[in-house]
């Protein structure tokens, strides 16, 4: 049962001289006491102060006007601190959203509307068989083109703007202002910034948690970043809200109501971020080291051109590249499962049939679940995939571009008729909005989480926790809704 312990002998390959040296050091450590480390640091600082004083001449009088302090007084003041922050970030989001519509449409026109037919005819001219053309152009190329046209413009606007604020030195002040809120949830004030980055792209948000130097708070920030509604999910929210929620009310307030619905989803995301942070810091992550320090650097005039250049290289292009790498195989898979038939029905049809019961239980349907599974590489292609699958399954006539070819349409009536043929209700729409917020991160983000944490365990937590929460959330919403509707 129990072995009494043998006294462990250190296997030592060192020479006796070295061993006696180490022994000497060990016994001296008892002598110098536990405060050695402190006394050493104090000695270094005393020396540093002496040397610095000999080398630096300070102005006789302190300058009356210190520009840094004056900016700080404004940006962290009780009265103006929060309004200034709110205005700045509203401005950034507004510039991003309004500014990216135009290049996004333009890219989509070139890459999807113009280049796709060209590629198709090129494939025909080279006398590719139909399946090869479909696989390459309709599958891989189209998915990638979609991701690029939706993703690139907002990121190319958002990231440089954010980086300019960073170079100026404002972002640490945001963490300073908001830290109290985050501390209550067991998180770090700097998480406000990784969340903000997450609204652009979760993968970039996860990378930006590097600024948090405390292990526990950094993990919290990484795991909860997914609750920041990313750029790929905004369009889904807006489309579904305006189609289903907006149509519940009279037309003149439809716009406001659907906007409020989207804001509500974002707020739910913020709430979940805090709730999950609180939960994690008190359970799973309790043992991780937690320290707090926040240096507020001096303000520096940002260098605009260089910032734009480096943020394009560092953030936008790298994130985009990863997205492309993941979108290519996704496009291929989507095309293949829609076009390979087993017993007269495509694989997609079989999968939808299998997933339908689960989907209906949580108020969605098999098509939506399948779309979320195959479109894991990028949230941008979820809606086009859902549309394509719905048409494929219901066999609706006159819409769509063929099996495995993603499409989107501007016509609300077409969209509504497609969704109705798929059996959608307001409940489906509400659940889709919720699930779009609370589900696993896209594969780019999952990969980034793995790179940043270096741990499969935390990657699994960050992936599975939101899916579990999403399924539970939609399940309860659905059942309560049905119960309420039944009475």
């Amino acid at each position, binding site marked *: 049962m129990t072995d009494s312990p043998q006294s462990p002998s250190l296997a030592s390959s060192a020479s006796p001289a070295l061993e006696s040296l180490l022994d000497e050091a060990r016994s*001296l450590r008892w002598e110098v006491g536990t405060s050695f480390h402190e006394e*050493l640091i104090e000695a270094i600082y005393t020396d540093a102060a002496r040397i610095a004083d000999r080398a630096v001449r300070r102005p006789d009088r302190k300058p009356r006007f210190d520009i840094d302090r004056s900016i700080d007084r404004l940006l962290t003041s009780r009265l103006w601190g929060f309004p200034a922050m709110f205005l700045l970030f509203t401005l950034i989001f507004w510039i991003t959203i309004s500014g990216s519509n135009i290049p996004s449409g333009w890219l989509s026109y070139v890459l999807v509307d113009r280049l796709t037919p060209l590629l198709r005819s090129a494939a025909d001219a080279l006398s590719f068989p139909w399946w090869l053309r479909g696989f390459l152009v309709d599958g891989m190329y189209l998915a990638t083109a979609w991701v690029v046209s939706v993703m690139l413009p907002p990121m190319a606007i958002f990231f440089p703007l954010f980086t300019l604020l960073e170079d*100026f030195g404002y972002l640490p002040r945001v963490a300073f202002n908001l830290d109290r809120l985050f501390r209550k949830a067991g998180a770090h004030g700097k998480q406000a910034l990784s969340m903000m980055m997450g609204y652009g792209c979760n993968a970039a948000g996860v990378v930006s948690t590097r600024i948090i130097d405390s292990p526990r708070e950094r993990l919290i920030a990484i795991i909860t970043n997914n609750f920041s509604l990313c750029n790929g999910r905004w369009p889904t929210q807006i489309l579904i809200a305006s189609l289903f929620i907006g149509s519940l009310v009279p037309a003149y307030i439809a716009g406001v109501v659907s906007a409020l619905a989207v804001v509500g989803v974002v707020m739910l995301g913020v709430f979940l971020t805090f709730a999950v942070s609180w939960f994690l810091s008190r359970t799973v992550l309790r043992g991780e080291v937690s320290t707090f320090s926040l240096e507020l650097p001096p303000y520096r005039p940002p260098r605009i051109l260089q910032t734009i250049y480096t943020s394009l290289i560092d953030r936008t292009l790298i994130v985009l590249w990863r997205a492309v790498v993941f979108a290519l195989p996704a496009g291929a898979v989507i095309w293949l499962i829609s076009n390979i038939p087993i017993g007269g029905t495509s694989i997609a049809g079989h999968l939808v049939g299998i997933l339908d019961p689960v989907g209906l239980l949580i108020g969605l349907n098999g098509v939506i679940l399948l779309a979320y599974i195959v479109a894991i590489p990028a949230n941008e292609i979820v809606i086009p995939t859902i549309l394509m699958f719905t048409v494929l399954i219901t066999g609706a006539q006159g819409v769509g571009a063929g099996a495995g070819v993603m499409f989107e349409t501007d016509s609300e009536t077409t969209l509504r008729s497609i969704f109705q043929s798929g059996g959608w209700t307001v409940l489906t729409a509400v659940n889709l909005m919720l699930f779009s917020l609370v589900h696993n991160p896209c594969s780019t983000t999952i990969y980034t989480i793995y790179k940043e944490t270096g741990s499969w365990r935390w990657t699994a937590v960050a992936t599975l926790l939101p899916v579990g929460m999403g399924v539970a959330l939609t399940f309860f919403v659905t059942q309560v809704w049905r119960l309420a509707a039944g009475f």
Partner: protein
Amino acid sequence: MNPEPAAAHTPSAEACESCALFRASQLKKLGVILEDWDHVIALAGNPNVGKSTVFNSLTGLRQHTGNWPGKTVTRAEGGFEYGGSRYKIVDLPGTYSLLSTSVDEEVARDFILFGQPDVTVVVADASRLERNLNLVLQILEITDRVVLCLNLMDEARRRGLELDARRLARDLGVPVVPAAARQREGIPELLAAISDVAEGRAICRPHRLRTESPVLSRAVTGLEEKVRAALPDLPNPRWVALRLLDGDERIAEALRSGELARLGSASASRAAASSAPGEMPEDGRETTREEGSA
């Protein structure tokens, strides 16, 4: 060692052989091309002192620099050619100290100690010298081949601070170069200082820490002697003694495994190979520009 004028890049070099412009034009930025270098340079410094800016202006790379402490998390490497020698430069993570046990500090410390860079360039914020000297003094305990780059001189001037770089160089015993890397100020002088230390033209006699507590000094001195006796070639016996007293198991392990002994013999052979000792840095190499006259 005589620097070969790199005539290939500078057709009109004869006109001004001694001015800073000429020296800068000897610089050939090599980006990430890192083949057969002659010298390895480590770039250390506190967070948010413009270390990455210095790195970028030496290598021509565009590493992102943010006004945000702790931006460089991973180790970046780049290369440049100057005065006929090829240099590999390693940008270490920004740290406040080398005494704690965070991953960043371990990376930085291990590279300076075991990576045996030919020169360690410490970038310091001139406007907050005292704070930055903390790290500088710690690095001076580990290695004596150090160049101090006083960056952000523009900010110091804006605050009305006047820095006496000569005085600092004399006190620290290593070359000190005032710079404002964002404005490309001081980079030629920095290159010259790096090459002087790398080629052995400038010999550093670095400042050593003084401890005030008698118990401490006795313990440190006693153990230092023991270390010196056990490993006579080790360049930094005192630092090793300090680390052992602080209970640094990484160093004890390096001692046990013979890693430190190898370090000692390598540094001894390098000292033998290097050319005749040059002058003390304070009357030699650092810039003569007047500083802090703003």
